[in-house]
């Protein structure tokens, strides 16, 4: 077995870029939110400080083995998603370990972290945790339905299950992007991305001032640091996934940063002006509008 150390190095470097960009992006989003509320907002380096602070907490308690493993599963879900995601199109170094058929794997990895978290937070024994978990799993299941429909529509449209190929098919002008060639699938996916990012109106997993703060209630210190690291990675990688599938991918890091920012901003923008759904309303909503859009996208093929 020969290991490509060059590839490994660049993958690790990519992970660091994604992590830092994710932290900066969350700071920027919070600053934008603060400005809308006429506040100055947090300093731009606040997420890094929070992360260092969390890792520097001296004492830690445990509730059992699964409690340890919950954040680890979550992080491996995020990193796994990253590993199989081609970041920059056309570059051999920044495509990570993507291969033919990685689309299926990525859909799986999206769910993986959630499940690991469910096991870990469930062992925490805090009622808010498992209420949040049950909400999160049921919502995520319904998000997956329109999302999978949209992905199937694209896979059929481009006759491939490889993300790199899908990006390649969209090159050569803005009109080749899926958002214009297959608007219904894009609409379905962009609505389900609202749920995936977990901002209001679909933030009922964490649901501040209802079940504060859902699954991570018992997690602290290093556990929380791991969870926050994962969140930073996951947000960027999910934005990159949607960028690759619908918005023509990125040929440079700059393009990736701009596009992932805009995709993430879309969910923050909606969250700023809409209150939160109840869980049954959220499930019903996902099974109505995005699902119908997804089915139309399938039918139109």
């Amino acid at each position, binding site marked *: 077995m020969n290991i490509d150390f060059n590839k490994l190095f660049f993958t690790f470097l990519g992970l660091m870029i994604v992590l830092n960009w994710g932290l900066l992006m969350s700071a920027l989003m919070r600053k934008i939110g603060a400005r809308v509320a006429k506040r*100055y907002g947090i300093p731009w380096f606040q997420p890094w*400080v929070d992360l260092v602070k969390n890792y520097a907490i001296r*004492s830690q*308690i445990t509730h*059992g083995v699964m409690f340890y493993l919950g954040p680890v599963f979550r992080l491996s879900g995020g990193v796994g998603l990253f590993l199989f995601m081609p970041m920059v199109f056309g570059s051999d170094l920044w495509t990570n370990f993507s291969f033919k058929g990685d689309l299926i794997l990525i859909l799986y990895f999206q769910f993986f972290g959630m499940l690991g978290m469910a096991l870990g937070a469930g062992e925490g024994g805090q009622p808010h945790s498992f209420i949040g978990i049950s909400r999160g799993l049921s919502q995520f299941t319904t998000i997956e339905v329109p999302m999978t429909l949209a992905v199937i529509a694209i896979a059929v449209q481009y006759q491939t299950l490889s993300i790199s190929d899908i990006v390649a098919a969209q090159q050569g002008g803005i009109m080749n992007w899926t958002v214009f060639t297959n608007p219904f699938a894009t609409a379905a996916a962009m609505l389900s991305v609202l749920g995936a990012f977990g901002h209001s109106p679909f933030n009922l997993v964490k649901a501040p001032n209802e079940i504060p*703060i859902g699954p991570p209630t*018992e*997690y602290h210190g290093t556990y929380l640091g791991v969870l926050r690291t994962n969140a930073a990675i996951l947000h960027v990688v999910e934005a990159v996934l949607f960028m690759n599938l619908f918005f023509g991918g990125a040929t440079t890091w700059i393009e990736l940063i701009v596009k992932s920012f805009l995709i993430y901003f879309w969910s923050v923008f909606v969250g700023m002006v809409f209150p939160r759904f109840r869980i049954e309303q959220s499930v019903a909503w996902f099974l109505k509008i995005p699902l119908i859009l997804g089915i139309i996208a399938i039918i139109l093929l």
Partner: protein
Amino acid sequence: MTEDNFKMSNKQEEEVSKFFAPENEKRKVETPDGEIIEINPLQDYFSDARPKVHHPNTSKVVEKFLNWARAESLWVLGFGTGCGSIEIPPLLTPRFDAFRFGVQMRPTPRQSNVIIISGYLAVKTLKRVIRSYEQMQNPKYVLALGSCTINGGMYFDSYNTINRLDYYIPVDVYVAGCMPRPEALLSGFGKLKELIKAGKGEKANEYVEKFDWYKANQKKIIQDWNMPDYNW
């Protein structure tokens, strides 16, 4: 996935727990009701363990950097214990905007570092405050608001409010006034940051060192003590 896959034999389990953490061994304890039960700390949520002193990092440079991070990221427990909590919302909104200084609210004691005792403490709340305080992780800081926490303030003769907070939990910074304005609170946060950066924010360890004294004081006024002595 069946449960058996994960299950170790009892002997294995004991060895593992002895290796990792001796305080996680099975043992017999006396509950607050006087009943004697056997507990397995890895599975049961019952603790009679005394808290431990967590020493600062031996490297001074590292500790200085970590203290800077701790000072710049103060996560406050969202627990409005008294009337001072009316000034917390203005603190987080456009006029005063404490987010600028790295002050953020957290809803759970596990994740917070600072607990603001906003004014007088009724005995019933004191019990909850002690629980919340003990559930917070080291290092942790206490910011006491208002004259009621210093000497009882205008409730000096009340039968239900405590007079001196520092007899029950260690206090880092007092903010005087009734009520203190948000500016005073911000200045209190500034003072707390100075203390942390200077390495003086070790009150959590002081609580551990004087644990018996604090517990005796707490038990003197909390009549029905139906919880373990220390809640992590």
